[in-house]
């Protein structure tokens, strides 16, 4: 197994005629945390939505370039998006639990879809995933209430648990802590660090401290272009590009 688990070659994405991602080249190493930072609207969400083939579900979306998952292009004509998404999980920017479905059912929906029927196994998966997502203590007494009855931050962690339950080797997270209080956010950061042993994480964040704390690598995007990429320690202490420096010091963005 090579060290590089995901390699992106000249990735471009459009909404109809609007070019939101303008040719990104990046590599992600196994068992690392990778942050993406950049001003609002610069195409971070669109970019990571291309990495698990969700962008194409938007009407009018177009994509070009390559994304190599373990060396295989996920956009090859014979690639199956369902297979791709089983390998690359995603926590969306907006919490999206399934309505009319209990907390428990929300968490185990992935394993169920993939054919797990054993009740004991499902219960164990739900317990572990909710624990990891730092939500178990808050919901353990109401697993059968609707998922949508939770608060926004709880829903965000519910969606995180739902993704963890499917155990994908690569996890994409789009601002997973934006709706969380500092304590819950810290728990999710701890989780990311733990996840690193088994998973590769790509996380979009607006929180510089968070990126500096948890991410091994950081990429800085502006207007659909990659401005700078490197070790977080370098990016945050010694940025090479003036724009990066301006952004992380709060002078631009």
């Amino acid at each position, binding site marked *: 197994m090579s060290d590089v688990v995901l390699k992106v070659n000249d990735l471009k994405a459009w909404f109809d005629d609007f070019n939101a991602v303008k040719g990104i080249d990046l590599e992600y190493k196994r068992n690392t945390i990778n942050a993406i930072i950049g001003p609002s609207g610069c195409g971070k969400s669109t970019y990571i939505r291309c990495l*698990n083939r*969700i962008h194409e*579900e938007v*009407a009018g979306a177009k994509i070009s370039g390559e994304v190599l998952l373990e060396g295989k292009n996920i956009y090859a004509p014979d690639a199956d*998006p*369902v*297979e791709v*998404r*089983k390998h690359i*999980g*995603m926590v*969306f920017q*907006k919490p*999206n*639990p*399934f*309505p*009319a*479905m209990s907390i428990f059912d929300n968490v185990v*929906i*992935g394993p169920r*879809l*993939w054919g797990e029927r054993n009740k004991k196994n499902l219960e164990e998966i739900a317990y572990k995933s909710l624990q990891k997502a730092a939500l178990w203590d808050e919901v353990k007494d109401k697993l059968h209430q609707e998922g*949508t009855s939770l608060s926004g931050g709880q829903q965000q962690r519910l*969606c995180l648990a*739902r*993704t963890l339950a*499917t155990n994908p080797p690569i996890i994409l997270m789009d601002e997973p802590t934006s709706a969380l209080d500092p304590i819950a956010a810290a728990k999710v950061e701890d989780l990311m660090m733990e996840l690193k042993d088994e998973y590769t994480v790509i996380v979009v964040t607006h929180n510089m401290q968070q990126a500096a704390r948890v991410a091994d690598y950081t990429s800085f995007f502006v207007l659909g272009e990659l401005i700078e990429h490197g070790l977080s320690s370098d990016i945050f202490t010694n940025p090479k590009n003036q724009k990066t420096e301006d952004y992380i010091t709060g002078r631009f963005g």
Partner: protein
Amino acid sequence: MVEMVSKDNIENNTSSPLKKRGISYKQQDKIAFMILRGFALAIVLLLGLMIYQLFQASAPAIKEFGFSFIYNDFWNPIEDEFGALPFIYGTLVTSLIAILIAAPVSIAIALFINEYLPKALGNLLGLFVELISAIPSIIFGLWGLYYLAPWVKDSLTPILKSTLGFLPLFSGPSFGIGILTASIILSIMIIPTITSVCREVFKVVPSLQKEAALALGATKFEAIKLAILKPSFSGVMGAVVLGLGRALGETMAVAMVIGNSAEISKSLFGAGATMASVMANEYAEADSEIHLSALCLIGLLLFVVTFFVNFFARSITWKAKMRGKKV
């Protein structure tokens, strides 16, 4: 400067922007409001008047037969004995079968248009489906009589008999026209209604959950089931009930293909009649007062039933839409 403005001048100042010659703006608004309110009230009054007059016209039959009108199964204009059960039965059976056929077909069409076709093509097909509802009822009737009925007799009946012939529903001979043919015509006529309401309901389901399902490795169909069909269940029920409302009252096409006989046929191949079709068929020839009144009473019953069915359907779809908007 102040002294120059005479008293006379002020009183005759008709060009003041605050005072218009003739009717003031405020009065204009008031008149417009009264006219609009008048029309709105008129339509409500008209509805009330219709119910009242229908009630008046059916009063003799109500007095004569009372509740037995609903459960008596004979309809004999020569003896002036009237029971509406055969028509109630015919209406319920044809509408029910129509729903059983139309609901799954409509849901499938709506999903196909909304989720599988590109937008432009989908809208085109949607328009096409809606045009079906613009076809006059009598044309469905003619088509049913000349093409559908022979097809039911020669092609569908043998298949049903060889597979489900052991059921009393599919026993006896088929003459083409009958309950089954009427039900099929009805189902075609209500497909546009159910389809377009289903499309509306599916459209308000947010796409976020569909993406969530896909991201978990669901197939497209699983994602649709999970994120679109499941949350819109009550809205779809509303659409189906709305279709039912239409089926209950459909008259002309049914009258042309159902065979018009006041009997309760166990077999779907047999002839029958519905509440609406018997009114259309007999109204012109009814010569006794009690016969006319009995027909009016059927009309009153049908009116009440369709009114409530529609009301019920709209309240479900409305609630579903509101919920869709909130999520």
